[in-house]
């Protein structure tokens, strides 16, 4: 089974075991292993600041992957992703505050609330398409955030809800390194779930719906059920990401879940590249690190202190510019660039793929 195969030169799978394997070639396995070792070694080399950045990237990755399932694969646009994250975070916060619930109750509860909200968010999708669907999710975002704000103000947590660190067998997870591994495992698990969902019946049904709804229906796919399923799964994942975010920050507040956050998640899947899980990951890394890059760039300028007050404005402006540039000039996103670089080396010293049938 572990016969090494050269990359990308054909389809060599001869049995189901090979078809189910996640990696095909020895090089793939080796590079995956090297990457895993790098990820495992990172927290022992990095400072607390970089550790925090990595944790943020993992959280964003879970959210971006879930949005990618919904938008990039099932073709259902959502502008209310921040609302789902907020729902998860508030579920964790409220259960902890009101019932002192431990994390192994709040996380599944957040997933359940997310799934329920997914049905609510998804119901309009049965009647609406494209733009109108995007608008209905946008509206639901405001409703969820309003409910969260209402809870905060009615219960007197006007500045936000504090949450204690989750404890396993008396050991509280407060250490940054432990958090790093917890979130790494969560992100990796999400990625694995996504990969397997997409190469199963469900994933194929989603892609068919995205490509052409009428044809998909003619093929016998239950459109309504699979659309709702996409919303339910994606929302449950997003809510779990929100709950993890709440635990990681020890703090929940509606301020964190503005419309801008939804835009950021949409930006992740655009900048990363629609219809690609790798794209969701790349987008999550890019969008999370971008503000820090801007800050570092501003620090290099003369009299850096004077820019400190306008940092967020610079962020907004630069973020808008980057999004516009990607939409205009690289609609395939970072993944498109990555594939082009790959092709360049695969085809080297030639520049273009041979035209099919040209050699005859």
């Amino acid at each position, binding site marked *: 089974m572990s016969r090494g195969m050269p990359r990308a030169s054909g389809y060599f799978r001869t049995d189901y075991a090979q078809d189910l394997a996640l990696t095909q070639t020895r090089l793939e396995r080796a590079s995956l292993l090297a990457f895993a070792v790098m990820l495992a070694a990172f927290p022992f080399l990095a400072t607390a600041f970089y550790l925090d950045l990595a944790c943020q990237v993992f959280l964003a990755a879970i959210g971006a992957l879930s949005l990618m399932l919904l938008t990039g694969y099932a073709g259902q646009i959502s502008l209310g992703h921040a609302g789902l994250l907020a729902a998860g975070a508030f579920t964790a916060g409220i259960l902890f505050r009101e019932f002192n619930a431990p994390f192994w109750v709040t996380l599944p509860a957040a997933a359940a609330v997310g799934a329920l909200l997914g049905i609510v968010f998804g119901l309009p999708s049965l009647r609406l398409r494209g733009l*109108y669907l995007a608008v209905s999710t946008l*509206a639901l975002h405001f409703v969820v955030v309003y409910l969260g704000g209402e809870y905060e103000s009615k219960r007197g947590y006007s500045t936000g809800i504090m949450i204690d660190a989750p404890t396993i067998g008396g050991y509280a997870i407060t250490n940054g390194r432990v958090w790093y591994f917890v979130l790494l495992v969560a992100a990796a698990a999400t990625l694995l779930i996504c990969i397997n969902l997409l190469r199963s019946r469900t994933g194929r049904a989603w892609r068919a719906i995205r490509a052409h709804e009428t044809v998909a229906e003619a093929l016998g796919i239950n459109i309504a059920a699979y659309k709702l399923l996409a919303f339910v799964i994606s929302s449950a994942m997003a809510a779990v990401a929100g709950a993890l975010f709440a635990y990681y920050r020890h703090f929940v507040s509606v301020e964190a879940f503005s419309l801008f956050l939804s835009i950021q998640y949409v930006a992740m899947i655009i900048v990363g590249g629609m219809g690609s899980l790798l794209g969701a990951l790349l987008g999550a890394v890019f969008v999370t690190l971008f503000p820090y890059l801007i800050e570092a760039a501003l620090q290099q300028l003369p009299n850096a202190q004077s820019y400190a007050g306008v940092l967020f*404005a610079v962020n907004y402006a630069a973020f808008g510019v980057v999004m516009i540039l990607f939409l205009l000039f690289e609609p395939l996103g970072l993944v498109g660039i990555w594939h082009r670089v790959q092709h360049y080396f695969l085809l080297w010293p030639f520049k273009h793929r041979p035209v099919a049938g040209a050699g005859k």
Partner: protein
Amino acid sequence: MQLAVNIVVLSAIYALIACGYVLIYRVSRVLNLAHGELMMLGAYLLLATAASFAGNPVAAIAAAVVLSLAVGILVYVFLMRKMTGEMVLAAVLTTVALGTLLRGLMVLIWSAQQQYPGQALGFANPAIALPGGGRISTFAAILVVTTALVYGGLFVFLRFGRWGVRMRAAGQNPLLAAQRGINLHAVYALAWGLSTLTGSMAGMLIALDSGLTSSMTVIGLKAFPAALVGGLDSLVGALVGALIIGAAEVLSIQYIDPLLSDVVPFLVLIAMLIVRPWGLFGTREELDRV
């Protein structure tokens, strides 16, 4: 009585903003989610012209209005023109990105503090007592009148104006319109210009009435349900939708909870999307086009 005045003023604000959404959507099927930011830019333009035309408020306002028309056309020529023929979603996301960019730029240029262009222009804003016991500020009254004039003007323009007919034609069937020699890019650019112009007028009047902060974009976003409730491709619809949203918002603030003000428009929107997604006056087949 005061309640009725509040409803009329808020509805007029929403109606004046919503017609910008309708104009662009009707002509090019693009939903402009940067409309709130463009509207705020118009208000800031007034602030800028007020500084350079000190002592001549009429010239300042005229300059700001002309500038905002130019801004709308420039946005189309340099940005949205590239998105014609692309997926609708890509175009909408481009407007979202544009909004983000504008928001950042405006804070960078004019800072996030509250500004009063009315003071800069030397206008007072006395309240007018209305028969029946209500009171209305001068600029709110001007805003209501402006909304009426803008809608009247747009109706006449779209019905009888040469370019208005072209705009309707481009909206109904771009391919046939282009076949008949209508310059689609010019029509789209005009739609963007007019939309930004009306939005900016709303922005300027709100700023003259109650000052200018970065929260103005929220008003722009809340006007969007008004456009959709009425039907995204109908001007009459925008007017009726604005009245519904305005009334719902004012009444719920008065009788239920002031915190609701930011959600009520969206609750109405969700209800409308469930019951009648194409809006009160919209065309039904719109739904399948996007």
